[in-house]
């Protein structure tokens, strides 16, 4: 597992029923591409987050297949429809099998 991997997520606390909201996510991760060499000229093995998903009450908002061309500390901004109060679940899946998860509640007024 890569060190110090901390997900950060920004979701509004409230929305109107059916409103479309903007979500931003940023996770600390080196996204080692597998293309770089160390000081001795050896290839540094690839170690990236290869998939990111966001669901709301179990239904998919976005599901991203990620390649090494995504920058260090992967950032995503996207939009979600909020039909009712509930929970956003954000999941990042690492090459080494670890998963990083964060959740955010949102209330529909």
């Amino acid at each position, binding site marked *: 597992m890569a060190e110090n991997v901390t997900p950060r997520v920004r979701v509004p606390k409230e929305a109107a029923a059916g409103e*479309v*909201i*903007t979500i931003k996510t940023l996770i600390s991760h080196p996204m080692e*591409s597998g*293309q770089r060499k160390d000081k001795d000229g050896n290839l540094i093995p690839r170690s990236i987050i290869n998939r990111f998903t966001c*669901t*709301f009450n179990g*239904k*998919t*908002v*976005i*599901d*991203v*297949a*990620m*390649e*090494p*061309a*995504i*920058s*260090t500390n*992967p*950032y*995503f*901004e*996207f*939009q*979600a*429809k909020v*039909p009712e109060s509930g929970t956003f679940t954000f999941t990042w899946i690492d090459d080494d099998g670890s998963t990083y998860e964060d959740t955010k509640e949102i209330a529909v007024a």
Partner: protein
Amino acid sequence: MSFSRRQTLAIMAGSGLSVMLGGRMALATPTEELIANFTGGAEITGEGLTLTAPEIAENGNTVPVEVDAPGAEAIILLATGNPNPDVGVFHFGPLAGAQMASTRIRLAGTQEVVAIAKMSDGSFARAAQEVKVTIGGCGG
């Protein structure tokens, strides 16, 4: 059977050319292969995909890119000049508020960034933009 020098050269040039052409036809570029995998070989005729990227990126390590295709099921993003052109595929679920996403990507040099959207009616749309990647003056 004997060949003159000129004939020999002509034959060599011709066979060389056919080898080159053969190789060319058998091997699509990595970008073309990735697009073919994504579309299943379907023609890309649709419209409605917008790709936003800077004309000049100050550093190829972190280039902001946005794709937006109302009604799309999925969008593939490709950096045609990278050693591996694939960047990612965005799949939009039923609760996507819009079929758009922004991220930050790595570009190995000045190149064309390409996006292909798969629309819900089964058609495909393409958008592309050239991004110039500057090489800094100082390593610092």
